[in-house]
């Protein structure tokens, strides 16, 4: 507002013009200077964001040439092996994009690879958020938004690869129609409503197109905005480290550091996507041929994010119940409706499930190292293992042909492994986490092994241990040891409280969650350990000369043996 100095440069004048009207400088100064913490794993979400931008750009190009019409045409393009074949206009235009539109095939492949990147990066970003506990208060709602975004990404991807109307995509739609029809009571209505009559009809692709290019991207865009605004407003979580507390953010300013980093990373993501799209085929629609309901190819698989559903349907035993001449297709309802429903619900509600178990209502801005919350980490690995087993089930025929084995044997094995492997993964992960914690404690108390051996005057060999850096120490000490819940189950009069059952359950769950853990070293132990290293450089000098006197000074040569007599 002050007019003490008038800008002289064109940029300055423009800025003044804008500022005079919209007073943007305050908001800009505050936001450009915002500090974000730095870690490579914080960039996984960025990959998803940039993939989405790539999707919007490449998708727009495709809309210029794609015709979402199920009208039959005779193909007369340049791809000879389909010349003269009857197909829908949608498929014909997909072929035209692939063979006759300049840059069309590259753009199609960029769009498809970016879609796989988008859902893949969201998933891995979600793993990061889960394993570090970034979903805890106050970020529960953002976790739910993220869950919805992943689901929308899956639906959007499915809609996208269903549009070209090739044999593979039509097969996927046929399965979808089967699943919709399997829903009790309303199934046929849902199916007829979706497809505008009998499958496949002529209505579905235009509808799907509107959903794919308008509705879902719009919702995703809105939710991504909300997601980012919340990160901005609630600030980014950070790893524990020197000077980092629950009340500050240590890192770099958005401008210029993160603007440069993020801008550069966008071009890297775009570059990698384009490079892969230029050299690696994805979804060769011309190979599949046009969709007709009487054809299906061996080795029909959905894109990766639908693979777990396909796998669930494949391993589900063929159970059907008949009530009063009405079939209840459990073989489809359980794997394709109930299972994904439960998985989604557990995923979205996890922040509250964990709060219920731990009773932890505090705000968290410092991340957990995955090893420091062994039960959560193990639960995550269990869920991922279960999901992976389902995905592998979806590839059972490819495995059978590639490894020349029986598909029946593979399917039966997978039915068993689906329930056996995840618990094993849980136990192993938890054990690994606990071991890593012990190793951390060991490093705190005894330092790094340097590999430098020292021979003492009386002939003994000892190894020099170096102290941890301040950063390493702070990272390990950032761990928060949580107490096991001990909620009241009886009231003051010794009578069972109304919430006794719930409290009892919570106490037991909390004990399961926290009881087996490795406590951090006490301050006294740390202080004693610090003494070990106060004379390390001296140690090397002294020890070579006068070992005994060095001992008297309280210095220490850490010995690989159990003998601690030198230390204290």
């Amino acid at each position, binding site marked *: 507002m002050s007019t003490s100095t008038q800008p002289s440069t064109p940029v300055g004048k423009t800025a003044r013009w804008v500022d005079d009207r919209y007073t943007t400088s305050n908001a800009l100064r505050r936001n450009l200077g915002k500090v974000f913490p730095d870690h490579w794993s914080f960039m996984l979400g960025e990959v998803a964001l940039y993939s989405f931008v790539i999707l919007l750009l490449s998708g727009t190009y495709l809309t210029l040439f794609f015709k979402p019409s199920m009208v039959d045409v005779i193909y007369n393009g340049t791809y*000879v092996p389909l010349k003269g074949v009857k197909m829908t206009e949608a498929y014909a235009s997909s072929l035209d994009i692939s063979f006759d539109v300049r840059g069309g095939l590259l753009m199609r492949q960029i769009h498809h690879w970016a879609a796989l990147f988008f859902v893949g990066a969201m998933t891995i970003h979600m793993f990061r958020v889960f394993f570090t506990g970034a979903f805890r208060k106050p970020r529960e709602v953002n976790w739910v938004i993220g869950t919805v975004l992943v689901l929308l990404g899956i639906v959007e991807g499915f809609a996208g690869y269903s549009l070209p109307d090739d044999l593979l995509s039509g097969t996927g739609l046929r399965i979808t129609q089967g699943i919709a029809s399997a829903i009790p009571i309303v199934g046929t209505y849902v199916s007829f409503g979706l497809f505008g009559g009998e499958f496949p009809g002529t209505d579905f692709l235009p509808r799907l197109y509107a959903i794919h290019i308008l509705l879902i991207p719009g919702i995703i865009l809105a939710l991504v905005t909300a997601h980012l605004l919340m990160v901005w407003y609630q600030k980014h979580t950070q790893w524990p480290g020197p000077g980092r507390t629950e009340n500050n953010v240590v890192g770099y300013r958005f401008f210029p550091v993160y603007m440069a980093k993020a801008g550069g990373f966008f071009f890297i993501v775009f570059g990698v996507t384009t490079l892969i799209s230029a050299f690696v085929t994805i979804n060769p629609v011309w*190979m*599949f041929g046009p969709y007709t309901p009487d054809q299906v190819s061996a080795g029909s698989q959905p894109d990766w994010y639908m693979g777990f559903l396909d796998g669930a349907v494949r391993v589900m035993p063929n159970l059907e119940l008949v009530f009063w001449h009405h079939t209840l297709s459990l073989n489809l309802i359980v794997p394709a409706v109930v299972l994904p429903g439960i998985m989604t619900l557990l995923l979205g509600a996890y922040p509250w499930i964990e709060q219920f178990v731990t009773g932890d209502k505090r705000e968290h801005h410092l991340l957990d190292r995955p090893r420091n919350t062994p039960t959560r980490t193990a639960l995550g690995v269990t869920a991922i293992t279960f999901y992976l087993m389902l995905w592998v089930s979806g590839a059972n025929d490819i495995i059978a042909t590639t490894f020349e084995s029986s598909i029946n044997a593979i399917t039966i094995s997978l039915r068993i492994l689906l329930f056996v492997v995840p618990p094993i993964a849980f136990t192993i992960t938890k054990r690994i986490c606990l071991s890593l914690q012990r190793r951390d404690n060991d490093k705190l108390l005894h330092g790094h092994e340097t590999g430098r051996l020292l021979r003492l005057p009386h002939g003994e060999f000892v190894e020099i241990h170096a102290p941890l850096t301040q950063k390493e120490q702070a990272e390990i000490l950032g761990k928060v040891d949580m107490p096991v819940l001990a909620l009241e189950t009886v009231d003051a009069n010794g009578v069972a409280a109304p919430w006794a059952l719930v409290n009892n359950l919570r106490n037991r769950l909390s004990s399961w969650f926290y009881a087996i853990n490795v406590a951090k070293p006490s301050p006294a132990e740390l202080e004693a350990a610090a003494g070990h290293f106060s004379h390390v450089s001296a140690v090397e000098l002294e020890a070579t000369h006068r070992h005994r006197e060095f001992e008297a000074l309280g210095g220490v040569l850490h010995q690989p043996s159990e003998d601690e007599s030198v230390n204290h």
Partner: protein
Amino acid sequence: MKGKPAVNVSSSKRRRPMAAGVLLLLALVSTGAAYAVTTSALSAKSSSAANADNARQGKLLFTEGCSSCHGLAAQGGSNGPSLVGVGAAAVDFQVGTGRMPMAAAGVQARRKPPVYTQAEIDKLAAYVASLGPGPSVPKASQYDFSDANVAAGGEIYRLNCSQCHNYAGKGGALSDGKVAPQLMDASPKQIYEAMITGPQSMPVFSDRQIPAKNKQEIIAYINYLQSAPDPGGSALGRLGPVTETVFLFTVAIGALVAFAIWIGSKAR
């Protein structure tokens, strides 16, 4: 005794290096000449007499290499089916693709390098054909696909073949370890024979179901699949989304994570 070998060795060492090559050439020429004489002698005979002769020799080969499973009179047994009436085409296909004789008992014979020469296969085929009427080995004109319409073949292929052999001819799983094999190595003649004889789990596609012209179109399409370029770049084995996923989570996302780590570490 002691001196002589030494002389031999030294004289053999003095042999010209060309000698082996010349010897080989001589052997080849004489074998070729002998072959030409015998074949011309064979073709001089009447074809039925040649067939009978072939069948007689084929029976010897059969007794030696096939009868332990298929029975001494090819009547079949507990380990192999009867071959009466399967026809020469079946023998030419099964032995010509190396499926027979089987390397080991199993649910299905797999393709492998053939054990018998084409001349021996012809004799075996003549013997089996003499046991009962069956489809004969197709003539080259029957499986000549040079005038066939590839696109029409694709239509018929997708309708009749792709549900087992896969849209790209990559094969597919059947029940209990049986497979529809991949078609990348199948010759036009073998594809034709497979259609008319229905080997192993495959149904027979007689000329009433798929006329000869359409069979040629199918062969033309499979031939296209075998040599088709991949305009989109590496096709990852044309196995569809499974290999695409593996590529995505190893190479592609791996590269991006590597970049993220690089950018993240530069800040220190």
